[in-house]
């Protein structure tokens, strides 16, 4: 390899960062170009510096390593580091992405780097695998927050802030009390990962938070609309199956 791998360390614990740095210090193919203490800085650094390789901790303050992946415009090679997370392990096994279990030896780390080098040489694309990984969530039954990025700012939206979600081809638009946020995820993802006690897929294009429903109106025979509690009184179309689901959840 002619050039060194531009490498970024994203890890919240200082001692863990020190160890990684000391392991990588005299590696001939690695050049550490930066360190980040949390996921926010990590996303920014990856998008700006476009590193070849990232060492990424999973449990971090603000946003997790998995959530970070959702926010990346640029997908580098990633070696995950984690202490113990049986669900994360499951995810890794399914996706065959490199990971290191803390505490790990220098040899184990070198082996992971060799694997990454091999992948870069063969120009393997792992962005799809990463995408899959970020959808994998067997640990909790339902998500309790969504991370989004508008231009340069990252927002963490707890699910009770969501009013409704609208489908836009490959994207969704998430409407909250203070605005709207675009996210590259499918409606199916939100339908399965949001608690169905609170969120109803009322239409092919809409998922609504039940607490934000003000009224359900019939506007034609067998067709309904939902009116939300906001000041614009947003109206959303309801499909036949959507109406059935509303009836089930709200018991009427």
């Amino acid at each position, binding site marked *: 390899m002619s050039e060194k791998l531009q490498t970024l360390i994203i890890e919240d614990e200082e*001692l863990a960062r020190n*160890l990684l740095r000391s392991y990588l210090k005299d590696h001939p193919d690695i050049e550490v170009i930066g360190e980040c203490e949390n996921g926010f800085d990590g996303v920014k650094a990856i998008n700006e510096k476009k590193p070849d390789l990232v060492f990424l901790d999973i449990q971090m303050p603000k946003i997790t390593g998995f959530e970070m992946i959702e926010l990346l415009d640029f997908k580098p090679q990633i070696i995950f580091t984690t202490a113990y*997370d049986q669900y994360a392990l499951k995810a890794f096994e399914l996706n065959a992405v490199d990971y290191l279990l803390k505490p790990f030896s220098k040899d184990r780390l070198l082996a992971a780097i060799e694997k990454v080098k091999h992948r870069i040489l063969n120009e393997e694309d792992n962005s799809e695998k990463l995408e899959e990984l970020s959808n994998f969530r067997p640990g909790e039954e339902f998500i309790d927050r969504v991370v989004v990025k508008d231009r340069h700012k990252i927002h*963490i939206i*707890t699910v009770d802030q969501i009013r409704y979600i609208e489908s836009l081809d490959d994207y969704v638009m998430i409407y909250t009390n203070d605005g709207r946020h675009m996210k590259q995820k499918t409606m199916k993802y939100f339908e399965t990962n949001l608690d169905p006690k609170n969120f109803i897929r009322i239409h092919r294009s809409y998922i609504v938070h039940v607490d934000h429903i003000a009224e359900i109106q019939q506007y034609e025979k067998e067709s309904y609309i939902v009116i939300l509690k906001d000041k614009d009184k947003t109206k959303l179309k309801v499909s036949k199956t959507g109406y059935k689901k509303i009836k089930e959840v709200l018991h009427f």
Partner: protein
Amino acid sequence: MKHPLTHNYRLLGFYIFFWAAIGVINIILQVLWYNVPLVYSLLDTGTNYVLFPLLGSSIWYSIRYNSVEEVSVPRLIIFHLIAASILCGIWVYISYAIYQPFIRDNNTFLKDGLPSKIFAGYIMYAIYLIFFYAVNYYQSLKEKIKKESEYKALIREAELQALKSQINPHFLFNSLNSISSLTVSNPEKAQEMVINLSTFMRYSLMHNEKEMVSFTRELENIKLYLSIEKVRFGKKLNAEFEIDAHCLEAEIPNMILQPLFENAIKYGVYETTDQVTIKTICKCEGNLLKINIVNDYDASTIKRRGEGIGLRNIRKRMEIIYNNPDLMKVIDHKTSFEVQLIIPQKQAVS
């Protein structure tokens, strides 16, 4: 089940006294009122109230192995009729064998008395049957109650065991990783941390054996736990203690505080990039030890889901130990989270 008369001496005494009393009354009545010759009366009493009770005690076995629940009623009736016939046969045969030497000349006593003797035998059999069924019922009821309370104790024990906190593997592996890092940069600190971790582990293993410890020990252990976590989190973790000195003698369930601090670290320290203070306030009021643990948290990143499994287990453990469901309070102040434990003491701490 054992024969109640051979294993319950009170019942045996009562049995002997009862039939002896009946026998004596019988003799008195027969001799003084009906002018029956004493020999006859003795023979009659002997066979009815001594011999029959002796033979009759075997009826226990006939009911013991033919419980009403397991055997159909017709079979039961047939069985007891046969058993009664055999018993009466034996009884009458022995009775007459005893009579023979004394009453050789008087045929009427023997002949005329036979039907009523046999009839009396059946009636007595029935009475014994009822008596033994009652005894059997009472005994199995007592045994059931005993077993039930044994089971309850076992269940309580098992529940307590299950609720005791286990060391979180996440904590262990992260600590080991810190140590791994320190061996490179600061071997002395690494050694110190290995020792702290070992002491902490030893304490947490000990709690399998002992339910209650002194508050001082529990507190020492918590400080040890926090010192280990402080190596990982550095100045992000700040712990403050405000403890009334006279509380230290109080008794407290083993390892009950550690999960609360673990929780505070998980939701407080882990989720934010700023410094988080975990404040512990302990007061003694009468015979109550009150412990409040307060930590800041970043409400913008986590939606608190009320009680997680850690807190629920503590609540249940307190409920089982103290038989009171209200000893743990959880208060969400939106920017901080507070857990209060109330630990009753056997005597007032002063």
